[in-house]
């Protein structure tokens, strides 16, 4: 191993200092650029978690991406195998929302069980789901009626 202790300024003069400053500035610029990208992306990627009641109270605009959490109401889950048309009603004990999606429901999706759907309201008030997530956790229990989805 070399035992030299180059301190930059000895023998290299102004150029050494300039180079050091360049390194520090480059590192700073890097950090700022990443911070900028992060803040920009964060605002765009936030998806609100709402219960059907909250969604109605907020008057969520048509087309705005959101997640609805609640229970799949009994007797409403329909999956048409040939067209792969999926529809069910998600409710929180107070409000109910009709959800329409395409594709087989996730294996854990059951009537009476908790579910989270991601998508947006269409102009007709129907929630068009792009993603259906059945809630499953260590303890297999449906959330109590009226519970907000991110609480367990």
């Amino acid at each position, binding site marked *: *191993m*070399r035992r*030299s*202790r*180059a*301190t*930059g*300024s000895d023998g290299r003069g102004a150029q050494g200092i300039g*180079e*050091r400053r*360049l*390194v*520090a500035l*480059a*590192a700073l610029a*890097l*950090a700022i650029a*990443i*911070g900028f*990208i*992060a803040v920009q*992306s*964060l605002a*765009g*990627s*936030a*998806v*609100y*978690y*709402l219960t059907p009641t909250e969604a109605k109270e907020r008057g969520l605009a048509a087309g705005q991406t959101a*997640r609805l959490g609640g229970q799949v109401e009994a007797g409403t889950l329909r*999956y048409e*195998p*040939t067209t*792969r048309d999926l529809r069910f009603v998600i409710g929180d004990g107070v409000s109910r929302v009709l959800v329409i999606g395409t*594709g*087989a*429901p*996730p*294996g*854990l999706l*059951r009537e009476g*069980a908790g579910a989270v759907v991601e998508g947006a309201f269409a102009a007709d008030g129907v929630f068009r789901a792009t993603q259906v997530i*059945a809630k*499953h*956790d*260590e*303890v*297999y*229990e*449906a959330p109590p009626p009226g519970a*907000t*989805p*991110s609480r*367990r």
Partner: protein
Amino acid sequence: MSIGWADIGAGALRAALLFALGGIVAAAFAARYRDVRGLRSARWCALVAFALVVLADAAMIGALVTHDFRLAYVAGNNARETPLFYSVISLWAALEGSILLWTLVLAGATTFVAWRGTRALPRLATTALGILFAMLAFFLLLVTTPAADPFVASPFVPENGRGPNPLLQNNPLMALHPPLLYLGYVLFSVPFAYAIASLILGEGGDRWLVATRRYALVSWALLGSGIVAGAWWSYAVLGWGGYWAWDPVENAAIMPWLTATAYLHSVMVEEKRRLLRTWNLALVIATFALTILGTFLTRSGIVNSVHAFSLSAIGPLLLGYLVAILVVSCGLMLWRSRELADGGSLGAPLSREAIFLFQNVLFVAATVTVLLGTLYPLIAEALGGVQLSIGAPYFDRVQVPIGLALLFLMGVGPQLPWHGASRATLERQFAAPALAAAAGAALALGSGMRGAAPVLTYALAAFVAATVVQEVVRGVRARRVLHGEPAAHALAALFRRSGRRYGGYVVHLGIALIAVAIAASQAGAVEVERTLSPGGAMQVGQHEIRLDALSEVQEPQRRRVIADLWVAGPGGETRLSPSFAFYPNATQPVGSPGISAGPADDVYAILAAYDARGKAWATIRVRVIPLVSWLWVGGLVIGVGAVIAALPPPRRREVHLPAIAAEAAAGAE
């Protein structure tokens, strides 16, 4: 009344707590007064506490294996039908058991430091030992309070238990993934304890860092293997065709790995250039704090995660522990700030130390942005009262550019000399790798990759691989010239004698492999979903998939509905059986994918829905995912590299003297 598993376990933990507390006193006494008797007592305290925790863990396994439902933990996580293997690994299937395993690893690490670590640097190591005892005492306190006591009795003794979480008894990887993570998490306590000890003693030097380098490396490697094993488990079990979802639990594991990776590199700057002292201390403290934060996030139920543990009273205790760690660490660093001055300053922009600095900035930025995305929902709820989630798009948008920049620096860094590089050096070092990068980009475009990120990933991975090959070839050539060894012998000697350096290169190769696997599997996956009747077929990419039958099987612990698929593709024919499993104590079925893994691509089939009455149809989702198997191979390569780097180099024996003498004699003639 006879003595049960619960009495043995609970008794052992309480006794272990006494020995851990005794260990704190003994180690403090030994460090303060440089007293040998104190050290001897501390060693025995560690060993006895470790033995007692082993006993407690064994008692829990005994209770699980004998299905002793008098214990609430066994009743909640085990059933009579649970196979022996899954009964044993249920030790870490839920909150209380996993903290018990954590305590076991911590007690083991404490014992190892007590008996081995204190041989060198006795004062520093003994002080560190006292800190480890304090941490052990905290965890023993945790497992003996009602919040996380694994040996609490059931309110009533059920006829049969609930059985383990169905997701956890589906795949043997579950046996590997959590213990690897815990080992990684807990082993990082050792560098942290040494760092704090060095601050307490006011040692300005880097002795703590040199003494714990290997612990940090092993901890990092285990954490990394645990993360890859977890990704593999997620891929093989959860049936969504992916392996990483930026779930809070995954983020909790990746954050300390990121800061630990930064640390493993910045350590070299301190060793070689006496720079970045405060920075290295901060990285060790941050890594350790992140392991605790991860535990807090996933064990307290505070964040919403697919596989979070349920809400628990352990949260406030862990939060208090985390705050205490941060306050003490930062306070000590401020107090000792004068001793932490650097012995020089950073060199030219094109020097190895400057690349390490950029690399560290990127790793820390990656950590901070992951942390921001993970905690933002909590902040938004606390401040704005709204519930929101931050999805994968945020993480992808931020982490992909950082990852690409890191990949680039991974190729550049090892090729640059310390202090600065001349133009001639740059040309000599980067001519071949630049050509390789162009070839990599061409390969990506040729294999149908589109988009800047995947093509860049291929190019940079080829760049990295070329730098590694170039280094190894030059190393071998140098040894052949210097020692006259044959190539194979020279290669082995290179890895044996400069394990840290060449092991590091092997790790770089593994990372490049993983980068390519991620790029290909993310950008090149094709998914098709169809509803088929038995006999019906579908085409996905170059593979044809036919549904032969839909059948039902009754097994001891579950009932399964299986889709019998025939798959034909360029690699030949195979059969897959994605299924749904129904467990008696679970309200919902668990889907298992059928996977046919290959070097070119995986065929990943999921039974998405089926006709429960007449078995007349099934909806099958098939994903063809290119190169995804190489992700696990890359993990293995990283593990091998880490082992090479961690193995101590052979003692410098006098074996070279005769050779040199012979050379000298030859020269004299």
